[in-house]
């Protein structure tokens, strides 16, 4: 059973991953990428990491749905109605990637992988939580700071209007001058 699931997910994941760069339509490319990443999530569940696998499914679905919007916003011809290619240096890249894959595959097959040490805990999720809140606290805090920095950076990069645009030069305007009014009534 597990073996069958593995093959289905692995093949589907690779095929839809490859289709990402074959489709003309941005919507199809995005959702093909989503399919590929959902397969990765499924494989992670198969490896016994239920929580992380489901979280990958959750995050990737939301991420790709939002990505689709950006695709449509910023791509010319997002629907792929006129076939076009937007690639450069195709041959060189194919050679590089073929070489990398050959190297990786050789390494994977030839490397003397160590045997399995220890047994998986009964509840890997608990284990993960305990380690993130314990020995790996530094990782967790770094991730948190990185996420926070990203929020600030993305807002700064993406918006054109600062507080002086919204609230006037002396920041005294009672109601912000926004193109769209919010719901809290400020």
């Amino acid at each position, binding site marked *: 059973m597990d073996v069958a699931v593995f093959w289905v997910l692995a093949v589907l994941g690779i095929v839809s991953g490859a289709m990402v760069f074959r489709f003309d339509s941005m919507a199809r490319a995005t959702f093909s990428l989503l399919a590929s990443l959902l397969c990765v999530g499924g494989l992670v569940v198969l490896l016994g990491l239920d929580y992380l696998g489901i979280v990958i499914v959750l995050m990737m679905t939301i991420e790709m749905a939002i990505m689709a919007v950006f695709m449509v916003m910023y791509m010319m011809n997002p629907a792929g109605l006129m076939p076009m290619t937007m690639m450069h240096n195709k041959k060189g890249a194919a050679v590089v990637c073929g070489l990398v894959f050959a190297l990786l595959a050789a390494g994977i097959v030839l490397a003397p992988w160590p045997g399995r040490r220890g047994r998986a805990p009964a509840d890997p999720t608990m284990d993960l939580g305990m380690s993130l809140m314990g020995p790996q606290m530094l990782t967790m805090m770094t991730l948190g700071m*990185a996420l926070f920095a990203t929020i600030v950076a993305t807002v700064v990069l993406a918006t054109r209007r600062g507080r002086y645009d919204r609230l006037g030069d002396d920041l005294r305007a009672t109601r912000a001058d926004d193109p769209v009014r919010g719901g809290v009534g400020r």
Partner: protein
Amino acid sequence: MSLELFLLPAAALFCIGLFGALTQQSIVMLMMGLELMLGGVILAAAAVWHYIAPATSEGQVLVVVAVTAMALEMAIGFAVVTALFRSREIDMTDMAAELKE
């Protein structure tokens, strides 16, 4: 099933993603390539956790880090595209490179 069996699709995903990241002109498509590469990394990390060191949690933490990296890369990428688009109407890597000149 074995470790090798899981690592091979991971390597394949990584290379497909690399191909996309190297060839695509559009910045958004380039990010899709990066996503696929990170997907390969996640799969490899989970496989290594399962087959080599299930007792420790480092493998899991690595997956968490990779997932976060995906989200960050996406957010920053879109913000950069928006900023570029706003200032120069550019969404192609080639055109962005020309800006330097």
